């Protein structure tokens, strides 16, 4: 069942030099109980898409969409009221998400008190249960600790426990493991996977890291210059990318070529968000570019399970 459905989302900032298009046209469809990857490099609009979903787009942002629906509700009007009830954010830096001068217990209680009328003793039991559910050992002791006394991995688990405390069933995880060590990041991803299986959570995993996509995502969407250029099963995108940008991104990874050989770097830069795009956004950097790519926006190829925007007929280089 579809929990989140977005069609043609755009986030634009008016400016003196013309509109700045942070998100040009993003389509997303996320099934309940799945982890959906939102893949892209800096400036592709992945974080801004997440912020629009949370009703946290910066002041002055103009959000438009053909469909912008979460569980039957219109997000253009309901995003702010769903945040902290149904939708929660797991950010990149857990230390910044937690208040440094309050104990973990106080911060857990703040969330629980906002969301239930339970008496204090019951809230404490609930806090302990939530911290245990996120795999933290010694939760009673932890309640008395301050964030700086915890490691980055533990802090991220506390943030996840807080998200669960709100009762949210949709988590937007924005690069949740980027600030963590590889081994710790793997544990946090395993925790998210477990919570999805046990509690039926749905996760939008915003990331630039293909390892993260491979580890936890069921489906994924690749963003480029504010456009969703390919969406499909995560495994299919990682092993047989169809859009030339997705293919180039995977080919640029060090494990794509034998040891010591030159990597397939993508030359050039992402088009500026102030620059209007007439044809294909990737045309200037694409290895298989054709004259038509500069003139006409590419059609959507593929089927409902795996689709991509390209003038080429599905034969990625």
């Amino acid at each position, binding site marked *: 069942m579809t929990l989140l459905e977005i069609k043609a989302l755009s986030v634009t900032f008016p400016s003196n030099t013309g509109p700045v298009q942070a998100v040009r046209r993003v389509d997303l469809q996320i099934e309940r109980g799945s982890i959906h990857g939102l893949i892209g*490099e*800096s400036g592709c609009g992945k974080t801004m898409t997440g912020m629009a979903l949370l009703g946290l787009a910066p002041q002055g942002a103009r959000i438009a969409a053909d469909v912008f629906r979460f569980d039957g509700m219109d997000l253009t009007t309901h995003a702010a009221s769903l945040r902290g009830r149904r939708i929660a954010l797991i950010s990149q830096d857990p230390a910044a998400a937690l208040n440094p001068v309050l104990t973990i217990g106080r911060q857990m209680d703040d969330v629980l008190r906002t969301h239930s009328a339970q008496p204090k003793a019951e809230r404490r039991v609930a806090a302990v249960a939530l911290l245990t559910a996120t795999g933290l050992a010694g939760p009673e002791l932890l309640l008395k600790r301050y964030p700086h006394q915890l490691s980055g991995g533990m802090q991220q688990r506390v943030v996840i426990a807080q998200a669960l405390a709100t009762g949210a069933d949709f988590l937007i995880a924005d690069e949740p493991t980027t600030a963590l*060590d*590889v*081994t*710790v990041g*793997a544990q946090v*991803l395993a925790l998210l996977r477990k919570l999805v299986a046990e509690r039926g959570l749905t996760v939008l995993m915003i990331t*630039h890291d*293909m*390892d993260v996509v*491979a*580890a936890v995502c069921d489906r994924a969407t690749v963003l480029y210059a504010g456009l969703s250029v390919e969406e499909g099963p995560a495994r299919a995108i*990682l*092993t047989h990318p169809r859009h030339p940008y997705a293919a*180039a*991104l995977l080919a*640029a*990874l*060090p*494990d794509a070529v034998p*040891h*010591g050989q*030159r*990597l*397939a*770097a*993508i*030359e050039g*830069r992402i088009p500026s968000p102030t620059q209007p795009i007439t044809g294909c956004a990737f045309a200037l950097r694409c290895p298989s570019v054709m004259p038509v790519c500069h003139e006409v926006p590419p059609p959507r190829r593929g089927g409902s399970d795996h689709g991509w925007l390209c003038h080429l007929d599905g034969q990625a280089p």
Partner: protein
Amino acid sequence: MTAPLLHVQDLVVRYKPRGLFAQAPPPAVNRVSLSLPEGATLGVVGESGSGKSSLLRAILRLVPAESGSITFGGADWLSLRGPELRLARQGIGVVAQNPFLSLSPRLTIAQILSEPLLARGDRPGPDMVAQTAALLSRCGLPPDFLPRRARELSGGQAQRVAIARALALGPRLLVLDEPTSALDVSVQAQILNLLMDLKADFGLSMLFVTHNLKVVAHISDLLMVMHQGEVVESGRAESVIADPAQPYSRALMGFRPRP
């Protein structure tokens, strides 16, 4: 076999205890030995707290070594003092993680690149301009970048400037501390390609420190995995990645299933 360019033997680095009666903390670097042959690249991999940055700082003489020895270019590196050290340090170029922090926002690229030359005592003039332009173009940027400032550059362009600056004095060893961690994947590939080219052209030796095993393994000849101040695994890069002996090294490889 010729002597290695850089040789570290049983190096111990320990930071001071926090208080007067506090126990001495465990060493940040515990009896680490390494050998970097001329023209080779050594990758040092570890997570936070593994001691890789402390090792790097000790090699750069930014923190004192408690015991052990370091030889660089045949000289006893730890006994050098004052002007001698200053001169010898020209043999090492350093590239840091974040180019926007390591490059002054107030200076033009031309000023940034001529600073090490001026510090050495070179005279400013047309020769120096030509020299900086040549450095920059060797690192993949045209000379019209010279009058620009760091903040006008993309992350990848700024890191190219940082690499050019590190090469300004013709070092024999390039020390790279997480040089691609702040960059996007496509840009990371450009920088890794540049480093491989520079190594081939100048016969540079490199010490490449990072938490990303896959990145460093790709361009390294030798690999060393650190954990809690100790070397847990070292050897030829290809054999370490193909068959990590330690479970810890395997965990660092990430969790990506091979297609």
